[in-house]
Every structure is written in C-alpha cells, then in structure tokens.
C-alpha cells in the first residue's frame, strides 16, 4: 500500500504596493497581480472565515459591495473555489465578470490593497500506510494541513481531485475517494469537514 505523507502549508501576508481606487484600476490589477496575490484574497479568506457565515466569500467581493457594486460583489463571491483547478482559471473568470459589467468604472472608491501570500509547505511528521493510520492522522493534524490537502495542493498541481481522494483511490477505496472529493469547503468549516471525512473513513 502506498504511503500518504501529511503536509501543511503556512503563510504570512506581504503588501504588494498595488492599490486600486477605481473599478477600472481594480480590473487592471486583477489581470496583473501574481498568483499568490489571487490566492491570498480568495483562498486565505476561505481558510480564515471557514467557520462563520460571512456575507461575502472573499475580500474582493467585500470591497465591491462596499463601493456600490453589489451585483459584481455577488458574482465575485460566487466564484466556485472548489470547482476551479487552477488559479489562472479563477483569474480569467474574474476578468470575464469585470469585462461583462456595465458599471461605472472610474468612480473613486476606498482603496483596495493587494496582498500576496508568502507560502511555505512543511512536513508535519505524520505518515499513513493504511486506512486506520490515515484516519488517526486526519483526526490529529491541524486545520492548515487539512486545508492544504483538500484545497491548496490541488491548485498547485492543477488537478480536479484533492490529495486525500487521490490516495484513497490508489488504495482501492473509490467510493470514499469520491465522497471526500465532493466536499464543498465553501459552505462548511474545516472542523465540519474533518468530522465528515472521519465518518466517511469509518463507514
């Protein structure tokens, strides 16, 4: 049976120096900023607020709403972060939303500060060689690690399946793999996700 190595990703925030104070400059920045900046504003928010029902799903959407663009805010908030397999796809989707809008683009807004995630993957020192060990590790690891295996590493590999699903499939647990791969982290907390995964592994 192949071994599953549990990893985690930690990050901190770095200001890019890029600031937008109109919808037009915001749209330009979305096209120009690096992937780690897109990652910060979409996925770090998903991680940071995973446990509570916020009005919008990311800081782009909050800024748009606050500056009088409620339709755009809803559309940005609804970008399906679990469906997209690549940061570039998400960027394209956001650019498309902005291109389709008929909103006034040169109205002066409160500035939006673009921030980049400075990311580091670490080995958390846990390995699983069978389902029992896998279950025990899922129970113990921090939520950064869960987030890494369910969301982040998938984006790095531009793959539609998350790490847990890929390993479970490799070890012949296709049904469990499918169930875990269909978890929607946009509507549940990482604590809930952990509980559901443990239930699936138990079943």
């Amino acid at each position, binding site marked *: 049976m192949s071994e599953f190595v549990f990893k985690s990703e930690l990050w901190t*925030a770095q200001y890019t120096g890029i600031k937008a104070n109109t919808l037009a400059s915001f749209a330009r920045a979305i096209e120009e900023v690096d992937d780690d900046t897109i990652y910060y504003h979409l996925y770090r928010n998903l991680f940071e607020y995973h*446990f509570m029902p916020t*009005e919008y799903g990311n800081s782009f959407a909050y800024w748009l709403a606050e500056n009088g663009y409620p339709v755009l805010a809803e559309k940005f908030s609804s970008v399906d972060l679990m469906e997209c397999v690549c940061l570039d796809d998400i960027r394209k989707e956001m650019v498309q939303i902005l291109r389709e809008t008929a909103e006034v683009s040169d109205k002066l807004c409160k500035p939006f*500060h673009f921030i980049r995630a400075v990311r*580091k993957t670490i080995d*958390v020192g846990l390995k699983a060689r069978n389902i029992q060990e896998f279950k025990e590790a899922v129970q113990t690891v*921090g939520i950064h690690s869960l987030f890494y295996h369910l969301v982040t590493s998938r984006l790095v590999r531009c793959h539609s399946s998350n790490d847990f699903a890929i390993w479970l499939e490799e070890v012949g647990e296709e049904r469990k793999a499918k169930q875990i791969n269909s978890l929607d982290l946009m509507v549940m907390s990482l604590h809930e996700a952990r509980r559901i995964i443990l239930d699936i592994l138990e079943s």
Partner: protein
Amino acid sequence: MIEEYERYVGRGTLEELKALARQLKGVKVLHVNSTKKGGGVAEILYRLVPLMNDLGIDTSWEIIKGDQEFFSVTKKIHNLLHLPSGDGISQKELLTYMKHTYENVSYIDTDPYDVVFIHDPQPLGLIIKKKNGQRWIWRCHIDVSTPEEETWKFLEMFVNGYDAGIFHIPEFVREGVKIPSFIIPPSIDPLHDKNRELEDHFIFGVLEKFGIDPYRPIILQVARFDRLKDPFGVISAYRIVKRRLDCQLVLAGSYASDDPEGEEVYREVVETAGDDDDIHILNLPPDSHLEINALQRSATVVLQKSIREGFGLVVSEAMWKGKPVIGGNIGGIRRQIINGVTGYLVNSVEGTAFRIKQLLSGEKERSRMGRNARERVRQSFLITRHVKDYLMVIYSLLKS
C-alpha cells in the same frame, strides 16, 4: 510553555509551529524596543520571546537606553508620524535623537544575531550597525501612512536600510516605502491576566467594588480617556438606548499623571455623565488587568467607538470573552469585527444606539455573535499566530 496553548489552538497547530521552527534551527534572533514594561509592544514581547525560545529559536530581547530628553523627542516623533499636528521636529531634537542612537549603537550588541527586529521608531537608527549577511526588520506598530513630511524624510533614510518592514494593516504603510512590507496584525495572549478565565465570585467582587449591578445589562467601553475614543459619543448613544431599555454604562480607562489632556477629558466625561447613577466612569491604574478582564466578562455589549485607532486590540480581548463588539468603522477595528457576524461596525452615534438596542434585546443573537467572535480571535488574533507569522518572515528573508 508552548504546550500551554494546546487547549486553545489544538495539537495539530502546535505541531505545525514546531515543524516550521525546526527549519530555522540555529538561527539567532534579537528583538529591540524602548521599554521592558508598559505598553502593547513590551506586553507582546514579554510572552513572544520565551515562546520563540521554547520552539528552539535562540531569541533575545534588549531595550535601548535614553534619558528624559531623548524619550521626549521620540514621543514627539511618534506623534508626528501617527497624528501630525503643530510644529515639526527641530534640528536640536534631531541631534538629540542621533546622539542617543550612537550611544545605543555601542551599548547594544547586535553582531551575534542573524535576524534583528527593531520595534517602532525609537531604536530605528540602530540600523547603522547592520552587518553583511544579517537581516534587519522594522516592526512598526503605528500608522505611518500620513506622517509629518520632514520627520518622515529624516526617518526614511533609516527605514530603507532595513530588509523588511512589518505593519499591522496595509493602510498603515507609507506610500513609497521601498522595502518589502509584511502585514501582520498584533495578537492577544489567552494566558495573560487580561484574558485568562476568571471565577464568577471574582467577577461579582469587581462589580460590587465599583457599584455596578450584576443583574442588569451592562454596556462597556474600555479605553484611555482620549477624545479619539469618543467617550462623549458613547454617552450620547447610551442615552438614546436608555429611553427604551434598562441598562448601565461603564467607561473604564485611565490617564497617566503626566497626561494633562487625559485628565481634562476625564473631567469632561464625568461632567457630561452628570448625576446619572447608571453611568460608571472608572479611572483605573494601568495594571488593572484582572479588573478589566472581569468587566469585559460581565458586559452584555462591548463598544469601541473610536474615531481613530492604532489597531484597537481591546476589541479582540472582548471578542475572546465571547462578547459581540460594536466598533467604529475604521482601521484595525474593521479588521477584527466582521459586520453582522461577530459584532457591528458603526459610523455614527445613532447607528451605535441602534445596534446596542438590537443586541440588548436579542439574547440569541448576542450568543451567536459572541461565539463567532471568540472563534474569530482563536483563528486570527492569538499569540501563536503571531509567532507563526514572525517565523514565516524570518524564513522568507533567510532561506528564500
């Protein structure tokens, strides 16, 4: 020591911190600031330095020396950066700053360290000691986005010598800063007297001591007596609420003996409160951590109706105690409160009164928001997250 935090953040998070720290084995870190006691910076370092050592990062803490004249100049610099008004800095004051900087250059040995954190503007000039291969970081705890120009020009030559800066929020970064700017908010320590769990009888004792009725709703604002904290707006909001709902208002804060403006504001607040027995204005000694903790725990609703704030960490302190906080829609307060989820952001006296009434009337809503508030702090504003961020900055500067 780090193990004590497991019950707040979980075993997995501690293991992640340890794994990150292992990658920095052998790195020597120095923190330098201007005081060992008093103020938010010293409070954080007091706990953060031992935690970094406990994680295996050899970390020291030094404070700069200076006489009253030097610290008057640095206080003026602080004010000119944060809230520019009145005269700029004089040539004589610049000379005083440089003279003491050179004295501290020979007094503080920074050579043995790989990474040096310099906190705030007081020790900023020590950068002239930087050796090749070292990484120096300016940890700026104040808003320098709109400083007095001449003062900033003087400090900028030092700032640009650093390898990186760290600011609480991006809005606090001065436009045109040439060094990489990390964004790291401050944090609270759940084990500090300000935040640790308290027995009910202690909380009741504190309320009794100040003549506050524990069985009637309490609206609380903890803040020094300063116009920027808008104590007068808080009293006005309370009076609107009081027309309809029974409640008490507690304004707890302090002013230093060398702060004539604080004393003046305190007197005006007392005068504004008049003979309302349900307004309690408490001028407490600065180390009244347990009393403030007890007041926050007994509050029904907590306010932080500031007009301007550094970061306003007192918001997180109340949120950690499961309280919904109604805060001014500004700076660091906006970063802590999620409007409608962990509390409310407000822009006016009337808006404040409206939200107080909503929260006083809805126990379910208060509990829901209070639970969200505590989780928000657990996720983003505890000291363990702060340590992780510092380790990440060190890693990115040394290893990337």
